[in-house]
């Protein structure tokens, strides 16, 4: 799997951390989502922490480890130590060569993120062509943040266009207008994440200034292509009625948005954080209830967006 010392890397290659088939949450129909590694935001709730940094990372799955220790022998950089508390990965020393993952019989080590040429990624995407065709689906390129790897994403979008596969660009909006416009031209639609309206809160929760995100929203909305906005509903972060109301009035002023989805907080990604030696701040936070989601969706209706919907797992009371 790993591309050990590949001779001459394709300049259009991209680092992908997952190609997810039967994606039914990322745009119309049945889709395959290509998750690009690397994101400019640092949302406290991030559901895909393995997509944050651009370079590949080593993950250790405690439940799979059988203590065979082949990984330790395979590592030439002395980056691994199997302790009583689990695997300790020296992330400075580790160059994610993947030798340990190859040696592990149990699949307990994985390098997340690998280099794909656009052709390789397209070949994966094309496999579900029949499902796209029958469902009005296609490919969504997401992340991480796809605009951080524009050459690869542009090439992949182009290939899909040639192959008659519908495409969606899923962006957090934190991108230069040129890059965004360039990619949008090659895509059939856009999905945009809008999280928080309040400037200080946005900075606190995502680590970045909201202005470029809102600019992107304007570019997308003015492009004439279908735009679906998505807002994760995160307890204590994005889920206040005020925030939804503020987003609604922004969207009302924006126009051109076809659909707005509220995505209920999902609490299953904690283990991903620990596999990366990261801490998840939302550990133990309860799910939203259905009533809360319905109420927020009601507020979102004020945006005048043609279709407002909510989805996700909710807590039974």
């Amino acid at each position, binding site marked *: 799997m790993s591309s050990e010392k590949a001779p001459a890397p394709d300049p259009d290659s991209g680092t992908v951390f997952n190609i997810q088939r039967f994606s039914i949450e990322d745009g119309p129909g049945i889709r395959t989502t290509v998750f690009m590694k690397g994101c400019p935001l640092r949302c406290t709730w991030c559901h895909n922490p393995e997509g944050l940094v651009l370079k590949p990372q080593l993950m250790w799955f405690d439940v799979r480890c*059988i203590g065979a220790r082949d990984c330790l022998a395979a590592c030439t950089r002395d980056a691994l130590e199997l302790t009583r508390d689990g695997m300790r990965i020296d992330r400075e020393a580790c160059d994610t060569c993947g030798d340990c993952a190859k040696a592990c019989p149990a699949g307990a080590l994985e390098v997340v993120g690998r280099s794909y040429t656009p052709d390789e990624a397209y070949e994966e995407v094309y496999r579900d062509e029949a499902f796209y065709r029958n469902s009005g689906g296609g490919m969504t390129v997401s992340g991480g943040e796809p605009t951080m790897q524009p050459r690869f994403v542009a090439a992949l979008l182009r290939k899909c266009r040639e192959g008659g596969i519908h495409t969606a660009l899923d962006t957090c909006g934190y991108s230069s207008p040129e890059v965004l416009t360039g990619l949008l031209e090659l895509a059939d639609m856009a999905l945009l994440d809008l999280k928080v309206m309040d400037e200080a809160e946005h900075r606190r929760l995502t680590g970045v200034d909201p202005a470029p995100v809102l600019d992107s929203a304007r570019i997308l909305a003015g492009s004439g292509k279908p735009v679906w906005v998505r807002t994760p509903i995160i307890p204590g972060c994005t889920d206040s009625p005020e925030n939804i109301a503020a987003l609604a009035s922004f969207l009302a002023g924006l126009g051109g948005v076809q659909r707005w989805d509220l995505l209920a907080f999902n609490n299953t990604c904690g283990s991903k954080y620990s596999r990366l030696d990261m801490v998840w701040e939302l550990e133990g936070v309860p799910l939203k209830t259905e009533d809360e989601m319905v109420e927020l969706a009601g507020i979102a209706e004020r945006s005048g967006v043609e279709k407002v919907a909510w989805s996700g797992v909710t807590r039974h009371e």
Partner: protein
Amino acid sequence: MEESIALKPEELWNPASGLSDRVGRLREEYVEIEQRDFHNEVMPFTTGTDWDQVWSPVLWGVVPELIAFNKAFMESLPLAATKVELPDGFWDEPHVVRVAMFFREVVSRYLPVRILDGELIVGGQFNVALSRAHNKSEARAWLKDTMKWLKGIEKLNSHGMGNAGATPGHLIPDYPRALETGLKGLVEYFESLKADAAGRQQEDLLRALIITCEAVRVLAGRYADEAERLASECEDEARREELTEIARACRKVPWEPPETFAEALQALWFIHMLVMVQESYPGPGLSPGRIDQYLYPYYRDDIEAGRLTREQAKELLDCFWIKPNYAYDFLYRVGRNRGITSGYGQLITVGGHGPAGEDVSNDLTWLVLEVIEEMNLLEPKPNVRLHRSTPDELLKRVSEMVAGAQGSPFLLNFDERSEEALRWQGLPEEDLWDYAPVGCLENTLQGNDRSGTVDVNVNLAKAVELTLFDGKDLQTGDRLGPRTGDPRKFETWEEFKTAFETQLKALLDTFIDFYDFSDSIRARFEPTPYLSALVRGCAESGRDVTNAGPEHNYVTVEGVAFATAADSIAAIKKLVYEERLVSMDELVKAIEANYEGYEKMRQTLINKAPKYGNDDDEADAIARYLSRFWTEEVFKRSTPTGRRYRGGYLSWNYWIAYAPTTAATPDGRKRGTFLSNGLCPVDGTDRQGPTAVALSVGKLGLETVPNGDSHTITFNPTLLKGSERVDKLASYLRAYGEKGGTALQINVLDAETLRKAQEKPEDYKNLLVRVTGYNAYFVMLGREIQDEIIARESHEL
């Protein structure tokens, strides 16, 4: 994937509260089996001779759970049997005529007649064990062969090789013709054939057919008498009128052709119910076929003439729907483990296309779907045919029902995929459009085809074991296959493959021999003339349905543990011969040790070898090779009676039954872990989701599998919540029909809900799940199947 949260009892698919009082009461009466003062438990009837037999093991060979009980049944049932007074000259008649006469005596004088309070379709006691009506020398010959047969089945079964038997049911009788002409018309037809009968055999058969058809008229008359009696005692005027109407209908049908929807349902039920009597078999696989097609004219005419409202038609169908469920009373005291009481499969089919590919769904199709939804019963098992031109609204309705029930309320059959394989089989092109499945999903033609659809079940994973141990069973050391050599000496994949193919063919031939013998026992000693009267080809050829009388005769060999076998040989090819990560010597030792002390190797086999079910071309190519090789070998063989063998993939519950008797396998499975089911990937190995698994199945080249394949997938309920997602399911099904297998069943379940159901069975008694081609009430399944299903559902797509 998203976290799943258990469904609450009120979120389950429950019988609709909208059932009429009458239907609700009748349904409840059936379900509350312990509260009933009557049971449709098997009633034995004997000729009273010392040598008489009422139980025939060869008919039950494919129910491994019963193998151990055969001798007890053979001894005890005749003792408990009612002695039937035989007519003069009985013993002078040829055997097939005796069988017919015995059937006539029982149904016209002994079979209890009972009409339940409020029911509109009558006919309730049909589980019997009829005398085989052998004379002394026939009985002796039968017994000799049967004892020999019992030894054979015990050997095959106890070594986990598989099982086989000449199984009743599993066909679609020509009910449309019987309705069109009435049984009277059939009798006239048989009379007309007498003049040109080709010889004694055909003359005898024709006499037998006529006797049995006339007997049905007598039974219907007894129900008419009973209805009249009840009417005369009935104080409720409305019910009295109904009973009077029932009496009138029973005087008429099924002897005369029905003219209304109510009469058609009554006639159909009598005709069908008596096949179960004739075969002494509680209905498994005895399938009515495309009822929304052949009952539609009766329905339409009644509605158009204003004789019947849609609501009234639904209530009649509801009443009809309850009837076949009483088959489950058959062995109700023996126990409910392992789905014995859940897998009968009196399969009805709705939807599908017509001769020009046009969709033929109609209002009755929709009405049947409503009935299925509201009744929430095991039988009749429904199957919906989907095809290129299935209207979007119907597909949406079907998808909604799948999403709203837990174990899909019906199985989905894909016409283009199914017909492609029936074409390969060589069935007439002009008849393919009118195919229908029997039992669970086994494709046949209607009215003229016995394809022995579950008659031979071979454990493909056993061939892997035999290849690794030079033809010997690892556990017992018994020789089960030829000597193909010590696998440690095979230097190349090709050598291994040759040995594997030799074992596979030898295993197949073992079963072919055994089934040929089974088939010949039934052909010589077990005619079922009443069923023969309902299957085209028998009267004309003068051969009983058990003796290759139908126009189309096949025997289906179902491959069991397909994915376990495919993944095992893929692991050997890749890890032993290509990458040399594992040596054959070590592998053999590890399997001998059941992987105790070889966990590292086991993990390597699990994680480093390609697995079928992921749209992984490497794994799927090996799976395809296995499927093509196997099914083409099967198709080269025929029985001496002229029935050609054909391939299928339906594992009923054998993937559980043969788990302990199949050694550890090179895919990393330990002995005792369940084998793979139908054409499903090994549990937990398909990690690329429902599109990938559909493509893997489709890549096998299933045109060589005319019977069709059992493929189950599971969706987490949260994935199918809401109308948009139901649309996505619908389009998934369209694509599946283009790229996937012949049939699909969908569980919409999560492990959490099932665990709740184990804890509180009383709250979850309506929870239906799909097991393998059939659905069952989860709480009534044995614990081991329950646990297996939980394990399956824990791995979400």
